[in-house]
């Protein structure tokens, strides 16, 4: 059971990475990062079947941290929208050089 679970989590992680690298919308990028974090959570849960409860504890921490990141991240996205009227990364061009 562990093999397929790890493979599935690696696929999800790869989808997240591809999303971050190809998309330009800040919100979609953020959702892709969340997908990556949850892919890792899946790995932890699968591996804790081998190594005991440590992996499951880690998942709780990761979910808490992801929630804190989401709170800060969405606030930043709103701040950017107020200034630029868009959350498209291609439109953010104040910092160049």
């Amino acid at each position, binding site marked *: 059971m562990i093999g397929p679970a790890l493979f599935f989590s690696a696929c999800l992680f790869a989808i997240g990475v591809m999303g*971050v690298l190809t998309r330009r919308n800040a919100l979609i990028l953020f959702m892709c990062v969340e997908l990556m974090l949850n892919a*890792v959570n899946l*790995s932890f849960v699968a591996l804790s079947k081998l190594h005991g409860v440590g992996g499951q504890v*880690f998942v709780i921490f990761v979910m808490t*941290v992801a929630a804190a990141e989401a709170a800060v*991240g969405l606030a930043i996205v709103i701040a950017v929208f107020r*200034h630029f009227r868009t959350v498209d990364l291609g439109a953010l061009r*104040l910092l160049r050089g």
Partner: protein
Amino acid sequence: MLPFDLAIPSQLMQAYLPDIVLMGGGMLLLLWAVWRPESEAHSRSVAFLALGVCAAALAAVIWSWRMAFTATNGPVAVDGFRWASDVVILLGTMMTLAIAVDFNARMKLVAAESHVLTLLAASGMMLLSGARDLMLMFLGIELMSVSVYVLTGIDRRSGRGAEASLKYFLLGCFSSAFLLYGIALVYGATGSTNLITIGERFTTPAVSEQPMMLVGLALLLVGFAFKVAAAPFHMWTPDVYDGAPAPYSGFMACAVKTASFAALLRVCLEAVGPGSEKWHLALWWLAAATMVVGNLFALQQRNVKRMLSYSSIAHAGFLLVAVTAQTPEGAAAVVFYLVAYTLATLGAFAVVVALNEGKDGPADIGDYAGLWTVRPGLAMAMAVFMLALLGFPLVGGMGFFAKWYVLQAALKAPAPQTKLSIILVLATVVSAGFYLYVVMVMFMRPRPEGAAAPPPSSPMLRFVIATSVALILVLGLYPSPAVRLAQHSTARSFAPAAPKAAAVPAAASP
């Protein structure tokens, strides 16, 4: 004195004393900061209280250091290396707080919570520098990063700040996910998140050559490379440092880097060990690429904040040379280097703040033309910082010795890093091109007609600049006590791990 038994809560608390002081002080200060209505005076008082909390944490660190506490293998390391890194982190934090007071007054920025966030970021860094468990390492990195994302965009009126904050946030989360996946795979291969336990199991080829372990270590290294801004994972750095408020650019360049390097060194020395050739090779290329890219790109910058950000990338490369040595001497060289680097870089950002006239825009090098004629003190201080970053003998103060000890550690390692040392020296020669350019502009270019003299700095800012100059010069004249302290404490921190790592294969081979 008996080592702390970290399974007993009261002794665990004692091992965490400085962190508890800083974190608890930070939380109480948060209550105080939002208790009173927002005003400039209140924001200032919060900043001074934050400096007080830092000083208390520093006292706790020094006390624990002097008592020479040790601990059993547990989630947190209690050793000289942790205390030394904590001192550098707190030094950077206190300088940042002091610069931020002046910066906020110039920009008419009222944000009492920014000083609290600085404290919370610092407590994440201290958690990181002492973490001997990958779980705590992840929590420390996130506490540090999330606070710094907010600090980057703390000036809500600034579009540049918002853009920098978003870029930093997205790339920071992206890199954290890599780090986390690395941790998950290392956990899967070794069955533990404790660095010492990982180190013990890593010595068996069945574990160290396992694909899951190799991929895990590679992802871990990518995550760290993002955090310390090593090429080719440095792309976010110039934009973020340029858009962030100058005190927090300095904070990111110094304290964040110090904490990340402390964690990376602990992983290198306690978990992976010098045995892994692939890990070593990856570090080697990372160091070489970072030195070359950082210095070459810095040459073409005409914006001082961007130049300093590429300079911080270049210095990450120099520090990685000492990490590549994978010896306790290398760790000592890193700590000493980070002291010099923190003083010089935050000092340089303090000068950037001193020349700011309350406008939010790029720090153009043209503003520095003829600074010698209008503000000789500032020009001299900036010259010392630039020469220290360059590693110039005598006038560059401890910057020269910092590079010297890194070279020494690299050449004396069991596998001498001759090629890397040659690249380091060549890269330093290239770096003269942009550090000396700033000095040349300040002293030799005429002041443009009609350019107003920069506004006077507050006593606080002048104190920060003068103290950093003094420390750089004094530690440049008498480096040996500080160096001996760094070498002594790191040698003791990592000494027990080395023979144990060597003993395991000997016992396993018959």
